[in-house]
Structure formats: C-alpha cells, structure tokens
C-alpha cells in the first residue's frame, strides 16, 4: 500500500529544494555554529569579575589588605571608589556597580573580635558582641550575582594578620565524579545539541507543509495519488540526515573549542540523537498541518522552543523544578534527550540505561507522524 518509490521521490525533491534554497542551507550550518559559540562562551554560571565599589572609611593598611584579599578571590573587581556610603548607594542605583564593600572606621577592633580570625574565644558578657568586620551592599535583582557575593561571607581573614587559619573540618566531603573541574561548558555543549536540534528541526519541518500551500504546489500535490503518510515520511527523512550533520558540527566544535569529548560510544550517541531528531521532526510536521502560513509556523516553533530551553533541564536542573513544570517538561522531547545526551557524552551511559527515554521518543515520533498524516487532508475545503 505504502509506495517506497513515492517516498523516495518526495525525499529527492526535498533535498533538491533544500540544496537550492541558500538561506535554509546556510542555516543548517550557521545555526549550530553561531549558537555554539554564543552559548558556549556566554553562558557561564561561575560568577567572576563583578564590577564593585569600595568605600574605605578606615583608610588603614589593614583595610587596604582586606580589599586586596577580596579582589584576589576574582569574584569582584573594585572598579570604583566612593567617599561615603550614600554616594555608593547612588552608584548602585544607577548600576554603575553591582555591589559595594563598606569598610567601617573601626575595622581593627571589629577584626580582632571576629571569629573568622579564629583567635579570640567567645567574648565576655560585658564586651560588645562580635560584629562583621565590614558590610556588602548588593544589587539583589540578579540572584546569581547576589549568590556570588554571599559566597564571600565566610571568607577566612587569618591571612590579614599573617597567621595560619585553623581550617575548619567540613561537615560533608564532596567527590565530584563527572566534570570534576566544574566547567559549565561540559554541561552546556551536549545540552546545546538538544536546543539547536529542537530549534532547527521543528523550524524546518513546521514550514514543510505550509510551504507547499504558500508556493502554490498544494493543488498539484493533492491531485496526485500520493498518500499523506508517504508525504510525511518523505519530508522527514532528509532532515534526519541534516540533524545528524548538525550534531556532528556541534560535538566536533565542542571538542575543539571547549575540550568536551564524547565519553560514550558513537553508536549509542547515534541512536539517541536519531530518536530525538525523529521526535522533533514529527512534532514539526504536526505544527505544519496546523499553521496557516510560514509566519504562524515560526511562531509555533518559538512556542515549543522556549519551554524546551527553560524546562528541559538545559538551563535549570530538572529535579529542582516544581512538579507541574516537571509534568510539562516530561512531554517535551528535549527533556528526555537532555538527560540521555549528557549521559552519553559525559558519563558513557549504555543504551539499556536509557530505554525509557528512547521508547518515549520513538512513540512520540510515531504518534506525531500518524497525527500529521491524519490531519493532512487531500482537499481544499
């Protein structure tokens, strides 16, 4: 019933059109390239070099040493110096700096009582309680920056007095198994495979059916004996190949530029990626049967892309999300893929360990193809 020859004819036609459409052809190559460079270099969850201000009311050798110590952590750079706390607050308001360190005039007396020096025993009752040696005022609107500064709260001050610190014994010992240096690229590069594929695959196919109508080819097409499922399969297969090319670009560049090597087997990587590309393509086809024009198809792509970026675990850990968001995320192919690709690239996960995700993606692909075929009517009314 299903004619392989017709599927082949459609595939061939799609490939010819693709090859001649410079714009699309360029996007196949440029999107992964640009996105990888953009995300790879820009997304950095390690907080470094925050522009900060300094108000030194103490003006002693000690206060200068303190400021140097803080800067040595590389968390902040003191780009501005202010005379008064009021002036500093104003600078914070206009975002000249994101945080300000205020060193009080009585730095020395506070410092000697500070437990972070580790010297003084608990103070006697008649003495004023130990107070922090200095104060940070922080622009809290960016939580990442605020967290970075907050990380400085317990900074040991022993060095200030050239005295070895009695390092506290940590409550927990943490052994980092994968990504021991905690580089964010290691997590981002495989994740990017998912995001870029979601974007390009859905974008290409969501326009696939609409384009036939917009360019006026639909009336001819529905007058032929072609069956909807043949049309859908024929349109999907060329993009499977393109998706694989894009994966090769991302992972290849990821290795060259960001030193993220694939730990797992390429065969497992191939299967996992193919399953995800299939699911994205068939989702795109379903959207294509709903959209009335290419603009709508584009809008629907964005509608799927955004949750795929935000909920799939690419940006924020899946386990930290509220339960309803997790349900929604479970529906997105990108969520399953994110888990699997990171598994393969970073941890050498085996196919069997990912059976659930693979089955889910496979079912998603099949259902998508069937829904798209059923929705596709060989009629004009």
């Amino acid at each position, binding site marked *: 019933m299903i004619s392989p020859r017709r599927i082949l004819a459609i595939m061939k*036609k799609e490939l010819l059109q693709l090859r001649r459409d410079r714009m699309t052809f360029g996007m196949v190559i440029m999107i992964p390239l640009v996105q990888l460079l953009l995300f790879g270099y820009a997304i950095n969850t390690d907080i470094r070099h925050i522009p900060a201000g300094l108000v030194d009311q103490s003006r002693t050798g000690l206060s200068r040493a303190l400021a140097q110590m803080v800067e040595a952590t590389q968390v902040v750079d003191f780009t501005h110096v202010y005379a008064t706390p009021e002036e500093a607050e104003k600078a914070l308001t206009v975002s000249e700096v994101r945080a300000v360190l205020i060193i009080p005039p009585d730095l020395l007396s506070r410092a000697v009582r500070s437990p972070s020096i580790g010297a003084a025993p608990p103070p006697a009752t008649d003495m004023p309680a130990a107070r922090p040696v200095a104060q940070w005022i922080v622009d809290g609107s960016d939580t990442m920056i605020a967290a970075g500064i907050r990380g400085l709260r317990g900074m040991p001050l022993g060095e200030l007095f050239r005295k070895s610190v009695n390092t506290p014994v940590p409550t927990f010992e943490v052994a980092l198994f994968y990504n021991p240096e905690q580089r964010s690229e290691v997590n981002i590069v495989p994740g990017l495979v998912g995001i870029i594929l979601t974007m390009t695959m859905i974008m290409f196919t969501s326009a696939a059916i609409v384009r036939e109508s917009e360019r006026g080819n639909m*009336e001819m*097409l*529905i007058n032929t004996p*072609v069956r909807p499922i043949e049309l859908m399969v024929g349109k999907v297969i060329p993009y499977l190949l393109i998706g694989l090319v894009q994966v090769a670009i991302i992972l290849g560049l990821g290795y060259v530029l960001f030193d993220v090597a694939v730990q797992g087997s390429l065969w497992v990587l191939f299967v996992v990626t193919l399953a995800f590309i299939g699911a994205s393509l068939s989702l795109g086809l379903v959207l294509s049967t709903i959209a009335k024009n290419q603009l709508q198809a584009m809008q629907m792509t964005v509608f799927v892309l955004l949750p795929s970026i935000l909920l799939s675990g690419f940006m924020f850990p899946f386990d930290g999300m509220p339960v309803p968001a997790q349900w929604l995320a479970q529906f997105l192919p990108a969520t399953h893929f994110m888990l699997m690709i990171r598994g393969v690239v970073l941890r050498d996960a085996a196919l069997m360990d990912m059976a659930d995700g693979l089955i889910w993606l496979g079912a998603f692909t099949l259902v998508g193809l069937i829904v798209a075929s059923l929705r596709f009517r060989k*009629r004009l009314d």
Partner: protein
Amino acid sequence: MTGTVVETRGLTRRFGDKTAVDHVDLRIAPGEIYGFLGPNGSGKTTLMRMMTGLLTPSEGSATVLGTDLPGNAEPLKQAIGYMTQNFSHYRDLTVRENLGFVGNIYGVPRRDLSARIDELLVTYDLVGQADQRVGGMSGGQRQKMALAAAVLHRPKLLFLDEPTSAVDPETRRNFWEQLFDLVDEGASIIVSTHFMDEAERCHRIAILERGVKRIDGAPPALMRDLPAQVVEVTGRDMRGAKARLDPAPEVLSTAQIGARLRVLLRPDLDRPEAVVRTILGAREDVSAEQVDPNLEDVFVAATTPELAA
C-alpha cells in the same frame, strides 16, 4: 465505459453565502473535448475542483469515471490528470526534475520514464529548457510544462483549467493541436477558457455565468439554434447608434466590438437589417447587414436575462 465519463447532478458549491456553482447538470461523453466557457468568477475552477474531489459539493453529486463524488476520490487520482489554473509545479526544480517527480509519484514504470519524459519534451517543444529551472521560464513555457506533467501518466480524463492564458496565439494553436492528438489517443478532456476561439474548437461547451450553466451543446448547433438574428452595424458614432438601438423592443442586446456593433434581434422579424436602419433613422454614414451568428453572440444571448428565459 458507459458512454459518459462525467455526469453531474445538481452540483452546487457555496462559499459562505456566495454560491460559486449553482445546481449544474452535465453529461460529458468519452473522447471529446468539453469546454467550460465563462468570464472570471463564473465558477469554472470550482466546478473542476469538485469533479476531481478537491472540493466537497455543498449539494448534488457527480460520477467521474465511475467514481461517485462526494466520496473517496483517491481511486480517481491515478486515472485523471489536472493542470491547475495557477502554475503549481516546483519553480526551484528544472523541467526534467519536475517531470521525473510527477512520473515517480504516479508510478510510471521506471524503465519507461526517461523515454517518456524525452518524448514529452519533444512534443511540447521543451527540449531547450529541459534542464532549466522552471522559475526562470516564461508563462507560456511553464504552461507547456504543466500540460506535459498532466499527461505524463497517460490519464483517461484530463482537466485543463485555463491552460493557454499565458501563451501567444501561435503557441495556442499548437497547444490545441496537441489536445486533439491526445483525444485521438483516447483521452477525454475538460477544458475551461474565456476565449471564444478556444471554445469554438471544443466538441461541446457549457456556458457558465455566475455559477449557473446557461446553455450547453456543440458550438455549431448552438450558433445555428441561436434564438435571435444578428445584424452587424458599421460606421461612425457607434455609441450613438447603440444608445438608439438599446431601448427598441425588437432589439435583444447590442455589443460594440471595435468599430462594429453587433445587434441581436428577435428571431421572428422579417428583414432585421431593415428594422435596424429604421430605428437608426436616415443616416448615410451607417451600414447594417445581417450576418451568421458566432459563438460570441451565443454567449451574449445566453447571458442576457430576457433571452435566457
């Protein structure tokens, strides 16, 4: 075959409260070229789309090559060819690639396909354009390609929706010779047009106006049986002449064609040219003579409300 390739019974299609095709009854015999003649918006395309299963009739039914519509039109697709009014093949593909695509979709036997395409390229004078992208070709060349694509799988029934709208008169003549060749090979053809000369070449035509079939039959018979007499008036000031003739009770309609005025008069008048002269008064610079009706007259008569009644 039962003697009809297409039969429609009260076929009607409405878009909202607009009736595009209004209770059309047709019977089309095999081996003929059947023309739909009508101005733009008269429902020709809509009628064809219903007959190929692309549009569901709002009312009525049709039987096309034994397939009942509305119903599953898929078995029909392999047996018909359809050349759409607007070019609907791929502009970014070459002529040969487009024809190859069509051949594969219709399942033309693989070993015959390239020979068949070469043959069509010769027949439709497209050899020089074979490997040229369709988007860069002229409208006429595109229409020839579309015809080649429509006949590629040797359909029994061919629908051509205004196939020569973009070609010059000479190409149009060749085009029609090819249509007659196809009929000789056993195909039946349904063609829509708004050109009188094309309609005249059809074995039979139906004249459509605002979705209604006004009249149908073979063009010579339609001209012979015209329920009116035709007088052609030539001379100066035809607009003035028209203004005098139009209100006269003997005159059914007038139409100015260039410097001439064609006047349709009631069929029961003796010496109609004398009647016309009388109405125009004593004017030396005007001549009137009775002529044979042509298809244009048939069209005018069919679409004039008093006459159609």
